């Protein structure tokens, strides 16, 4: 049952911020020309990347190559700092320092997709001759004047724009959809600026990384501030990057007096309500539903979900997480059934039922008798035109022991063995195979090993939760699978991550 609704005047508009945030790499080629005597220019690098994105619908294929350009700056220790989205899914990177004409081949050393940062190295030491590493400043204040350096659209040369800091807040990072601290400025930040340094009084205070679609808002560019950059550099100093941890809880504000009284809060107590905790997250088995979170990492939480920041400023209670590493412990104070308790929480990453957008990984898939199975991921969802509401509902759902992934029958490659099914079953959820519940992709492999009475029984679930059975002749499976792979020129029946898992 598919249909679209006729449009009427809109009254309630729930705009998702992320939709309008645009990443600022830019697809051009060309060379920059030497200029000026500003010493900060010696820290500037233009980055050229050739990317190759995976195809999530036909995961055995790779999409065509694209070229993008961005900006970067020199770090101490012969490294280059830029945005992760300038160098994600990369197959070849070249760098060009300001005032030079020779492009050098660069390598990606570390990448942090969650906070959109990456560090590159260049094998040829000649590249760093005449360059000057940046020195870090601190977190600026509102109205501080900042200068954005980079190579945005509109020309080939270095561009410098100036503006003031207009806001400091937790915002969604478009590359990862994680909520992290960012600084907003009215200095022009345009495609190509991505990864470029932002200076204040000759010190670097951030990396330009995203802006708003001009239809939505003007003069709103964002930079990744120094605390986030320093956390990234500290992590990679230890040899590997680990992402910013999450608390793994749903929360709601407590601005209503009656609601606070109902929860047994005293007049002078403030905090937020935690109605649900994510399976296997940091808060799992530590917090309980309907606990009131009073303070986090020593900061008292306000009824609106903010904590004190600098003098006269407040910030989202998630901010302390932006500074911590995985495995760190932080104290929480909660109100549980009228009692104040202090707990320690060990920080982890969230486990999502539908993983957030991912980069630099090959899609997971398994093909059996022409049935193409894949987990539902944000990457997969982006390949589906006009996704049905039942898919979008899954984005808000949380994993459980019985359902760690949503395993999809994506589509069917037609063959005699699956005759009559191809038309009816695309993008349906797989519940059981041969009576074995499918909680994640690798369960498929073991389940197809155990046919029932000479047949494979695949139970798929429609959006109305109606179960249909797809029955396949197990005796013909091996031959059919081989024929299908050959016919469709598919080198492997499964992705590398599923090899040797079982089967």
């Amino acid at each position, binding site marked *: *049952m*598919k*249909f*679209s*609704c*006729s*449009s*009427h*005047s*809109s*009254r*309630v*508009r*729930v705009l998702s911020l992320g939709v309008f945030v645009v990443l600022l790499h830019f697809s051009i080629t060309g060379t920059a020309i030497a200029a000026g005597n500003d010493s900060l220019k010696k820290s500037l690098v233009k980055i050229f990347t050739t990317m190759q994105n995976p195809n999530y619908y036909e995961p055995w294929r790779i999409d065509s190559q694209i070229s993008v350009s961005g900006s970067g700056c020199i770090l101490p220790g012969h490294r280059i700092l830029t945005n992760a989205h300038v160098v994600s899914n990369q197959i070849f990177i070249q760098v060009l320092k300001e005032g030079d004409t020779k492009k050098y081949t660069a390598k990606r050393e570390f990448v942090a997709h969650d906070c959109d940062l990456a560090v590159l190295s260049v094998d040829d030491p000649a590249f760093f001759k005449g360059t000057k590493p940046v020195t870090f400043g601190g977190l600026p204040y509102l109205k501080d004047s900042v200068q954005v350096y980079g190579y945005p659209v509109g020309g080939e040369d270095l561009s410098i724009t100036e503006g003031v800091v207009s806001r400091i807040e937790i915002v969604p990072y478009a590359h990862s959809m994680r909520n992290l601290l960012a600084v907003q400025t009215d200095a022009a930040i345009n495609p190509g600026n991505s990864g470029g340094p932002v200076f204040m009084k000759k010190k670097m205070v951030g990396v330009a990384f995203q802006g708003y679609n001009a239809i939505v808002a003007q003069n709103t560019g964002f930079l990744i501030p120094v605390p986030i950059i320093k956390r990234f550099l500290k992590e990679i100093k230890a040899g590997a990057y680990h992402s910013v941890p999450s608390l793994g809880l*749903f929360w*709601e*504000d*407590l*601005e*209503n*007096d*009656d*609601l606070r*009284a*109902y929860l047994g809060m005293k007049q002078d107590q403030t905090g937020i*309500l935690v*109605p*649900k905790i994510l399976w296997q997250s940091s808060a799992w088995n530590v917090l309980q539903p309907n606990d009131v979170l009073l303070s986090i990492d020593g900061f008292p939480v306000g*009824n609106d979900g903010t904590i004190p920041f600098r003098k006269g400023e407040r910030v989202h209670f998630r901010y302390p997480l932006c500074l911590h590493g995985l495995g760190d412990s932080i104290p929480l104070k909660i109100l549980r059934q009228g009692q104040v308790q202090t707990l320690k929480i060990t920080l982890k990453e969230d486990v999502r039922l539908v993983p957030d957008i991912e980069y630099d990984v090959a899609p997971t898939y398994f093909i059996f008798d022409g049935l193409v199975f894949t987990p539902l991921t944000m990457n997969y969802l982006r390949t589906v035109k006009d996704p*049905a*509401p*039942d*898919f*979008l*509902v899954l*984005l*808000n759902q949380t994993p459980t022991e019985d359902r760690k992934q949503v395993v999809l029958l994506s589509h069917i490659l037609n063959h005699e*063995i*699956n*005759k*009559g*099914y191809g038309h*009816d079953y695309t993008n349906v959820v797989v519940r059981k195979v041969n009576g074995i519940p499918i909680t994640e992709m690798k369960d498929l492999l073991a389940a197809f090993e155990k046919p029932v009475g000479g*047949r494979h*029984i695949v139970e798929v679930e*429609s*959006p*109305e*939760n*109606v*179960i*249909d*059975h*797809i*029955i*396949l*002749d197990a005796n013909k499976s091996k031959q059919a699978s081989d024929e299908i792979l050959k016919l469709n020129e598919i080198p492997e029946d499964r992705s590398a991550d599923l090899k040797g898992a079982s089967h």
Partner: protein
Amino acid sequence: MKNLSLKQKFLLGLGLIFLAYLILMLSIPSWRWGHTKDLKKSVVKVFTTTQNVDFFEPWKAGSQSSVEGCGCVLPGKKILTLAHNVNKGNFIELEKFGETKRYVAKVEQSGFDMDLAILSVSDQDFFKDTEPVDFGDVPTKGDKVIVHGGEELAVKEDTVSGLDVVWVWDAARYMPVLMTDSSIDAKNNGCPVFSRGKLVGMPLSVSGSDKKGYILPINLIRTFFKDIQDGKPYVGFPDMGVFTQDLVNPTLRDFYKIPADQTGVIVSKVLYGSSADGLLKEGDVLQSFDGYAVDNEGYVTQQKSERVNWYYLFPLHAVGDVVSLDILRDGQKMKVKVPLKPLSCLVPYREDNRHPTYYMVAGFVFTPLTGNYFQTVEWKYFKPELRDLYVHGLPSPETKQVVLLTHVLPHEINKGYERLNNVIVKKVNGKTIHEMKDLIDAFDHPMGNMDVIDVDDLAYFGSTVVIDAQKAKQATDEIMANFKILSDRSQDLK
């Protein structure tokens, strides 16, 4: 031309004129020549001033607009038109072809899912010089049909390209329709479709319709007349209330032990409260419906060898009819008699719903989730959770209705809850809310001195709403005064 006398020239001229006249006559298709005069006497214009219903703020009268459409004269001095032309109408006028006088009409009967309505006119002068239409047969592929449309009821010819079962927004369900080559669109709003001088269908609006035109076939119109004879209230056309799976694959047929010479589809779900509830079981193979053999893809072959989905057969029956099914249950052939019931759905849509159910307490506005409510704002602005309920939600003994807290009218008492909108209400004061009327009783029994509303909306707005029950009554009165709301609830909840 040489040496012709004046007389010869005159005769030649006369001959040429006659020849031209003949050619002209022969080049005009016969329908234009033969029937236009009659049809003009059967087609009338319908002018409606409509009052829209505001499902978001149901205490308000909606905006007014006018709609222009057409209809045709029926035997028995009635007019047939499309329901969506007149259902919201508080003032309807009719105009005959080539006349300027308008006659006031009123709605006698309306069929919300067929989108058909019957009008009557009190001034019998209206029917002078009109001719009622004759009902024809369902046209088949390749047949020519004509439609009137536009300002001057211009005539357009079209070719029937086939019969199909499509989703019709105004009916909120699947309907059998005739398709034509080019679009029969809004311009033909209610203008009857004729073939060989007889009525064969009414135009239908199908959302997302491309370049095709859609016609509600005459046999469905006949069923509608049968449904409402003797002034019976119309309850919609029936539905079996089952989901089925095709039985094409040989291994699948083998699994269900279906002999090679048998056809049918397998029942994968029987809906709660539907026609088939208690009579069919999951795993039954449906082999025939009302005498029509169902093939392995769920199609039946009609007379004149039109192959259509078996859904096509529902609207040919009225609610209350008993149909006979052949089924295969556990390998045994069986006959089952099924009395047909209306469609059971969780989120209903009724074109003729003029009085939305609502209840407002302390600024919280509650309303059942209906298809009509989805028309208050653009489809994409509804949370996927609600859209999913509309498209895929099925009724169950636990959930008969989805009760929604649509928005909050701000007041001191509901401070901090302003952002709540379109959340599903689970419980009020500990009582599970199955349907709207449960709200009223639940709010009469606060928990201590608090009213506690449990909503299911973790990902967006939260889970618990608590207000001071003692102040709620006074706050409700103040909000009604502030927002000019005459009643805190709709008539049906009083």
